[in-house]
């Protein structure tokens, strides 16, 4: 009945002779929340970055709402036109581990920037929309401050507002809490949780296994250059079937209390 928002087939990335992952098939349905787990170096961030082509995928196909994006190329990585990339990235938002806010713009300026420059929305309207998005992440009162005045958690919430302002169909989170003080992790996860209740389609790379369990509708565990095990959080996290998944989870539970 429902068509996937995002479909990857035979998706792969290699840097020269180094294979990061290959033959990944994945259908993301509207409203899916997928947590991607894996040991470091398993390619989970690279997979996420290949989806909005910050990293150019090498092979396979990428479909957004049934439209194929990019072309295979016989030599090296896939090819994407500048126009395709800009269109794709407006539909697939991204939140980074290091926030990457624009330091020379105010908080509201950061959020309004994409609307103004990419969409051509008039400054006044873009500003209003920015404030609305900032309200959603609880930072409307910071609209006129500069990012350097914010805590890490606040910065990340601004970065989320910046992505939301473009009305993306899919949101990608690349370890959004890994650079944060433990005390600030909660406020960011709270915002992501709230987005989940709104039924947004999201892919999240994280080390917060507990959060992944509560947040995700589906877990992908990456290992050995591909999707090693996948399923519901209960399946994968409570009853992992395969040895590397079991080992990974055991490692994470080592210091639980």
């Amino acid at each position: 009945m429902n068509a996937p928002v995002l479909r990857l087939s035979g998706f792969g990335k290699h840097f020269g002779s180094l294979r990061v992952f290959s033959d990944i098939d994945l259908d993301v349905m509207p409203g899916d929340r997928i947590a991607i787990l894996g040991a470091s170096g398993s390619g989970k961030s690279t997979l996420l970055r290949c989806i909005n082509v910050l990293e150019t995928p090498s092979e396979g196909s990428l479909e957004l709402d049934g439209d194929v994006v990019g072309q295979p190329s016989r030599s090296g990585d896939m090819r994407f036109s500048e126009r395709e990339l800009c269109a794709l990235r407006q539909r697939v938002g991204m939140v980074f581990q290091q926030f990457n806010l624009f330091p020379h713009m105010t908080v509201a300026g950061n959020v309004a920037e994409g609307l103004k420059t990419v969409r051509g929305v008039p400054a006044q309207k873009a500003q209003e929309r920015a404030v609305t998005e900032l309200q959603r992440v609880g930072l409307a009162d910071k609209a006129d401050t500069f990012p350097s005045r914010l805590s890490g958690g606040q910065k990340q919430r601004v970065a989320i507002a910046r992505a939301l302002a473009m009305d993306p169909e899919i949101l990608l989170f690349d370890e959004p809490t890994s650079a944060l003080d433990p005390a600030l992790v909660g406020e960011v996860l709270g915002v992501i949780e709230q987005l989940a209740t709104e039924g947004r389609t999201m892919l999240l790379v994280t080390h917060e296994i507990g959060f992944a369990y509560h947040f995700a509708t589906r877990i992908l565990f990456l290992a050995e250059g591909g999707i090693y095990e996948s399923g519901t959080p209960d399946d994968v996290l409570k009853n992992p079937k395969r040895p590397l998944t079991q080992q990974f989870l055991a490692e994470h539970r080592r210091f639980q209390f």
Partner: protein
Amino acid sequence: MYEWDFSPVLAEGGFLLVGFRNTLILTATALSGGLVVGLLLAFARLSHRRWLNVPAGVVIEVFRTTPPLVQLFWFYFGLPIVLSVEMTPFLAASLTFMIQSGAFFAEIFRAGIVSIERGQWEAARAIGMTYNQCMGRVILPQAVKRMFPSMMERSIELMKTTTLVATVSYADLLFQANELAQKTFRPLEVFTVVALIYFVSISFISFVASRMERRFARSGEFTP
């Protein structure tokens, strides 16, 4: 004991003023042209297209590593022979100093641009900006703040380098000073006055520049 006497120099002050005006015109022309040339060379140098970045690299290296006096002679004496065009001292000097300072500016711009973290590019790209939009809205505004001190340094250097045009008889400050020294037999006094003019005007520029730098540092409230 040498007797200092500035009165013949001061009596002909208008003569030096003409030279000073010409120096300012030449510097302003070379500077504005040099900034444009520098930006174009920097973009070409940063391009992934080999047919752009290789020639840009060659131009930059040639003009950075050869003496400006030789470059001036190329343009003034060489170019008219090769292209059979008319060349005036002002045109030759403008071209020379535009490209010469452009080569240095290009390296300053390039260093400023590549010093901006990768994450800034990625964040701008990730909201759907084109390469040019990223450059114009996100990268350059931050890079310019970092480049500003070296740009000022280079501009001052340029103003002093323009004294070389005296050798192709463009009536700049130094050329006029030479004439005046021969007329008055007071070279020490004349060149002391010239040094003073350079000292005062360049100090003034430095002062304005450092105030602008402080303003930059305050606006945006971030330290690069």
